[in-house]
């Protein structure tokens, strides 16, 4: 296994934590550096980032009513 392959394998293991902003400072800096030089890992990261964005866009601010009224009555009853 070449160093590049080892680096790519490590990068792919950290991709989700990267797109979730959960990497520590050191790991984040290392991965950013790798992504600057590796087109393949960069494409994969971009794919995961965009897919996460699309999933996130499913979120709706759900209607509060009639649930809102029900919960307000419930809160008053406590």
């Amino acid at each position, binding site marked *: 296994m070449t160093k590049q392959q080892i680096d790519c394998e490590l990068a792919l293991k950290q991709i989700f934590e990267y797109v979730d902003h959960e990497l520590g400072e050191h790991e984040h800096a290392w991965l950013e550096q790798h992504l600057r030089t590796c087109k393949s890992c960069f*494409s994969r990261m971009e794919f995961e980032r965009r897919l*996460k964005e699309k999933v996130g866009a499913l979120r709706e601010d759900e209607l509060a009513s009639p649930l809102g009224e029900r919960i307000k009555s419930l809160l008053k009853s*406590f």
Partner: protein
Amino acid sequence: MAVSREVFEARVLALLGSLQGVARRLTRNDADAEDLVAETVERAWRARDALESEEAFRAWIFRILDNAFISGLRRAGARPQLESIERADEDAEDGSFSLFERLHQPFLLWFSNPEQEFLDKLLREDLDRALAALPDRYRVVVILADLEEFSYAEIAATLEIPLGTVRSRLARARGALQKVLWQQAQAYGLTGTGAPAGHGGELESVPQRAGPAARSACGNEGREQ
């Protein structure tokens, strides 16, 4: 610490939309979702002395919601769903599925960038259906991470699992979600690859296409015709 009535009410009302949204995706049913939120608020009020700090309120009340949801499954005797919850961290294969790798193959590179094109044309309804098809334990972790933007620490607190389990379960859940999206695209006849749909094990339900709109979920319409 006990929160005051004012703080409790304000926090609940501020989170009501999120609670309802998550409840709807868990129960897949509006009426059940409303009952689940109401039960959650009642349970939370009764247990308010157990809240450690105001900052922990969001994770705390979502934990109560999740527990109430599982209690509801038990009451309903929903054995298959409960079994799938217990097995959530056992299926190592889900985590290894990568939609990117499926799309990024030489015979699909007739297009400049098949995976980006796939995402460009991926419809909300396709994603909605794929998310709904996930087993409960996978669905909830994707909802918390991607829709509600919880940190891993908050997810750990909400689901009462270690941080390492959050990482691995989220990876499995995303692999499973991508597998469903791939299976959908194949079911629509859009991938043009003839690649095996069931690689890495089948999910329980592959959502069926809804209509012509779904066809655009992959960028290679007509390749197979």
